[in-house]
């Protein structure tokens, strides 16, 4: 019985991993009840980034709400816009031309790669390594240049419209994307060499903070968190939407359930997304990028519908209830980080504080996506 784990009862103290903390990537506060270095109970307190997204959904017309969709999960903003736009199109019965669907998939998958690159940099900072951030941000900037040329924004894109996209992609974008795909593919071995094989990183992530598949199902944690626990749940494969069925890509799944598995899932997902973009560029059809007669003041039919997309952090669902007017009656946004974080209280009990931060980083949280 070594000294370290003797469990004579000691007084616990409450530590605030507060709203302003480098590891919380935003304004998440976790009330930690600590017993020395171990966590007795970690209660996340959210709401510091609440920006009334759902209330605004009810007092803005459908078109005016588009910029809001990009300000929830702003690191992978195009998925939120994709979910919202498709939900309204499903309710209003608008069909989107082929080329627009392809452009949506290309830009969304590029956004996924940019989001994962940012996550790798941020995750390594949580574990104490600063250098990977400079490399991954350098690559991410190249994606932002591509997306900015087409959409005009770097982060909070307002690119998708009901019935298509607002700006067609040109050859320069296609050439730039192809060049970027080759560039990032050549960089992946370097990333694996100096991050994945780094002994300190492996010691900090392997067998740390396991999340079982059952816990993921019970809490509704989806995306790379669930695929790191051995469950191959991917909305693009299970409920195919848009033109995803036309591309051959596989869903990376790792059964180890620990932080390393979630990291490897995201690294492989980047490569898969590049494959999707490559195939989409090859099969890119011509034609218009906007449906013809989309009424300016959109009034979808009465009723409700649900649409969800595979965002970079999990399934992002939109439940839209409309009463026939030009504003939504109720707009529920199912955000992936909300459910991913809800399992933190249970999974961090008994962890050491640094391991709990590794778990928090591996959940890939964006706080305004949680607080909406």
């Amino acid at each position: 019985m070594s000294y370290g784990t003797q469990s004579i009862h000691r007084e616990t103290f409450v530590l605030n991993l507060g709203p302003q903390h480098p590891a919380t990537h935003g304004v998440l506060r976790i009330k930690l009840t600590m017993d020395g270095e171990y966590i007795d109970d970690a209660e996340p307190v959210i709401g510091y980034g609440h920006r009334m997204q759902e209330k605004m959904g009810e007092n803005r017309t459908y078109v005016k709400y588009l910029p809001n969709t990009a300000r929830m999960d702003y690191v992978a903003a195009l998925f939120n816009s994709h979910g919202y736009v498709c939900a309204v199109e499903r309710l209003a019965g608008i069909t989107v031309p082929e080329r627009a669907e392809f452009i949506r998939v290309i830009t969304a998958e590029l956004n996924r790669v940019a989001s994962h690159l940012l996550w790798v940099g941020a995750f390594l900072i949580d574990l104490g390594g600063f250098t990977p951030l400079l490399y991954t941000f350098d690559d991410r900037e190249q994606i932002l240049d591509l997306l900015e040329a087409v959409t005009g924004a770097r982060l909070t894109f307002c690119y998708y419209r009901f019935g298509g996209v607002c700006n067609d992609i040109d050859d320069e974008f296609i050439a730039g994307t192809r060049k970027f795909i080759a560039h990032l593919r050549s960089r992946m071995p370097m990333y694996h060499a100096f991050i994945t094989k780094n002994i300190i990183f492996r010691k900090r992530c392997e067998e740390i903070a396991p999340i079982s598949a059952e816990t993921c199902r019970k809490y509704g944690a989806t995306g790379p968190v669930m695929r790191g626990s051995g469950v191959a749940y991917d909305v693009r494969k299970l409920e195919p939407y848009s033109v995803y069925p036309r591309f051959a890509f596989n869903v990376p799944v790792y059964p180890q359930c620990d932080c390393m598995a979630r990291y490897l899932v995201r690294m492989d997902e980047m490569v898969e997304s590049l494959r999707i973009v490559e195939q989409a560029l090859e099969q890119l059809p011509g034609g218009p990028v906007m449906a013809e007669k989309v009424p300016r003041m959109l009034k979808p039919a009465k009723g409700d519908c649900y649409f969800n997309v595979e965002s970079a952090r999990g399934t992002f669902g939109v439940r839209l209830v409309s009463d026939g007017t030009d504003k939504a009656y109720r707009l529920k946004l199912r955000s992936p980080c909300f459910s991913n974080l809800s399992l933190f209280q249970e999974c961090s009990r008994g962890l050491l504080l640094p391991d709990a931060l590794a778990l928090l980083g591996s959940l890939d949280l964006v706080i305004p996506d949680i607080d909406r």
Partner: protein
Amino acid sequence: MSLEIIKAKFSAFAVHGAPLTAGADTPAALPVSLVVETRHAVKGYDLDVTVPPERVTDAARLLDEAAFMLEAITGLDWIAEQQFEVVYDYTSLTTGARVTVRARLPRATPELPSIAGIYPGANWHERETHDFFGIVFTGHPGLTTLLLPEDAVFHPLLKDFSA
């Protein structure tokens, strides 16, 4: 467990002798379980079940055994009919089938049993719905405010809410 078995089990919730008004969009005030088959492509879910409020935990337990995952809990304020509606979205991880369970509550006394015991993930969803609508989930381990400031007593998403 395929969708048909789930559909059969749900119809067991139906109150005997109650007229099954098939196809009516807003079910009669009588607590009747109305199981409607919908097309995924059109509505986004496969099975739309309206259960009486006190049977919500049975619905959750039934879907939990069928290895469904709780996606979201949505609150709805039908102020015209003086009713609240709580919508539970479940999805199957293997088949991709989606089941939506609805419960209607009188607006005056919004009372509903909590399913946080079966789905721990529902804990936060219910606290958030309580935040925005004031719907009380009985048996919830800690129904405090989640997104609003600790001392908030207003419920912002009510249709008659004014800041």
